[in-house]
């Protein structure tokens, strides 16, 4: 793979990695398994990037690879009971693909609103969603009760909601 192709891959992958991971998570609810499937997907995308048609839909291509990886995962797990069976996943799959456009807007609004949070609020949100973090660990770090952390997070989410609502309304009016 040439340097140019590598750069192209990085550009395309970084734009859509979030959706790929979220798509996998929808079909593989267990986060640890989803990460493993995502790793395998990413590796295959990298290895097969030479087959990708330039200027075509990278996200669709990547989702397709992820889809096969999910099938592979389910084939491996066929002897273990899966929480979501084939019927449920088929239903979810249809809903998920139909909502892709909305998720783009939602993420855009979420990012913009998160940047508008106060430093304290943003730090609190980031702390809670850090790897290995739990409400209890955040409470322990800050020397506060878990209940107070919950109330703070609740308020932050309400702030986010109002902001996202305004942003989405502004987008509609544009």
């Amino acid at each position, binding site marked *: *793979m040439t340097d140019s192709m590598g750069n192209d*891959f*990085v*550009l395309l992958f970084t734009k859509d*990695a*979030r959706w790929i991971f979220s798509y996998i*998570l*929808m079909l593989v609810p267990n*986060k640890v398994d989803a990460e493993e499937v995502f*790793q395998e997907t990413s*590796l*295959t995308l*990298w*290895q097969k990037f030479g087959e990708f048609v330039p200027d075509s*839909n990278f996200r*669709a291509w990547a*989702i*397709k*690879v992820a889809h096969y*990886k999910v*099938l*592979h995962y*389910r084939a*491996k797990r066929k002897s*273990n009971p899966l*929480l979501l069976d084939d*019927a*449920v*996943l*088929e*239903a*979810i799959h*249809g*809903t*998920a*693909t139909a*909502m892709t456009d*909305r998720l*783009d*807007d939602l993420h*855009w609004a979420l990012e913009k609103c998160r940047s508008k949070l106060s430093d304290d609020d943003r730090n609190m949100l*980031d702390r809670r*969603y*850090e790897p*290995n973090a*739990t*409400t*209890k660990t955040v409470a322990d770090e800050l020397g506060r009760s*878990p*209940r107070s952390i*919950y109330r703070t997070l*609740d308020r932050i*989410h*309400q702030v*986010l909601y109002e902001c*996202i*609502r305004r942003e*989405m309304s502004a*987008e*509609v009016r544009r």
Partner: protein
Amino acid sequence: MTEPQHNSDEICRLLWAMREDELAPGDAERLRSMLLEDPHARELYVYYMFLSGSLEWDSSARAKGRGTGDGRRGMAGSPAIDLPVGAAVELPLPSDLKSQIPDPRTPIPDPPFPSLSTTHYPLPTSYFSVGSWAFSCMVSAVIVCVMLLVFWAIKVTPRQHIAEAPAQSAPSEAMPEMVFVGRITGMVDVKWSDDPRFLPPLSSRAYVPLGRKYELVSGLMEITYDSGAKVILQGPCTYEVESTAGGYLALGKLTAKVEKERSEVRGQKSDHYPLSTIHYPLFSVRTPTALITDLGTEFGVEVDEVGVTESHVFRGSVKVEVVSDEGRGHEVILGENESARVERAEDRLVIVRGAASEKTARFIRAMPRPKPAVPVRIVETFDGVELGTAFEQMPPGRYAIRQGAAEHPRQEPLTPQGRQSRGYIRTVAADFCDRDFVFEATFHVRLDGPAHVPGSNAPHHIFFGLGDGVPNANCWDIVTCGLVLNFCVDNGQAWVGRCDPESDLNREVFGNLGGTVTEVVPLGGLSPGRHRFRLTKTGRCVKFAVDADFNGEFQPDFISRPIDLPTAVPLLDATNSRLLVGTGNCDVMTVRFEELSVTYLKTPKEE
């Protein structure tokens, strides 16, 4: 937006419990039902998982930026990650999937993308493990319900992005309600289209929703509609499920067989509409140029690249109508062994009627029966650095695979209150209670220190048998559920024990572990050294055999009495019946598993 059938709070609670791996069996079934029946629940699920993924993604990206000293956010510029060799494990897959899997033996350059895996973030089993899941559930419920309210209240205009959204389904403000019209009931050698907008079904027995499109490059796929109609698609073929009684064949061949009478019938084959009393209309297949309506029969339809449609009747009769921009036109009724072709003639579509031709032989009228599986023998000789595809470790990484053996590394001595360090190598397949087989294991064991002294140190065990392969948290040396041959290295005794989740703990009475079913080797009968154990199952009956001082040819020195497996371990089922070997307490014991083999005595039952 669709009207919710279920309470959003309850949906959020169940989703959170699912994410925390704390979903009770009853709640799991409830969640499943809600996701199947309620489009609102599915929307919530999708939003919830998207938000989870998005927040985690951002969080990981920020953490990685801090960890490498790179203050930039996002993925660009993240350092390359070394992936372990052989990380992609090969499994026996259908041929259409194999091409998607990279060969782990091929050297690969370091990919320039970050990892969410335990490479950098050693994660607990559940990322969202929280002291109080109810709190986290409430937080997530707030987020998700907020997002849902946003989309209830606000009309969203799709943005123009550099990467366009997949065109598989057109964006619509109203979320389409998922209606299942049947199920996939067979697949043979299917190769799916490479079109990135097409995603293959999730399984060979997936439910078929209204509007689903199938694009086969080759192979056969059978759909059975709830009405009883069966359609066999022959690749190359593009078919879209248009209704509860038919579909659109854009290209390729299909055979349809409609056996049910045209009377009011219950949707008995639909798990989703068990009380439905749907009156199914006549089954029909639409093509670019024709509409073929079944009148009680079996027929084939073929469409070529320019939309010319050929219909052939194998049994009964069909009606063939011309379909054009002007609507439906000329029609004919075809009887048995008759054919019709709808083609363009002088800018008109016409029907050319005739007798069945040699082309009818190209239609597949029944799914080929799968070939019976031949007896298979699986052998694991630990020649690589990882286990083959038939076996796995529980917990992962407990045994070091090297130099042709799986060896348990020496562990730290246990505290008096400590539990034994148990580990298993078990089959991936978990349905051996339904199979007949011979399972054998060769191992070498030695004690490098004092044997077990009650109250002082823990005994040293080797396990061999059939069960879930999960160390029983309540009992210090056996599986949670199974029938296991316990070899106590300290005193040379081996007995078959029954293990269940209610097994007692804190056994100080050495030798009375689990529910003893039968002694196989008396005290002092087995010394440290190389042995081979055998487990034979035929029907309900299992027997254990031991070859002490194995020298390459199995010659049993000890044989158990026949044991009725369902009676001995009634909790074994097709989800927890693995073949396993394991060890308990390796402080001064060194065990090397040198070979595992499974020989099926007859084919497993088909579904």
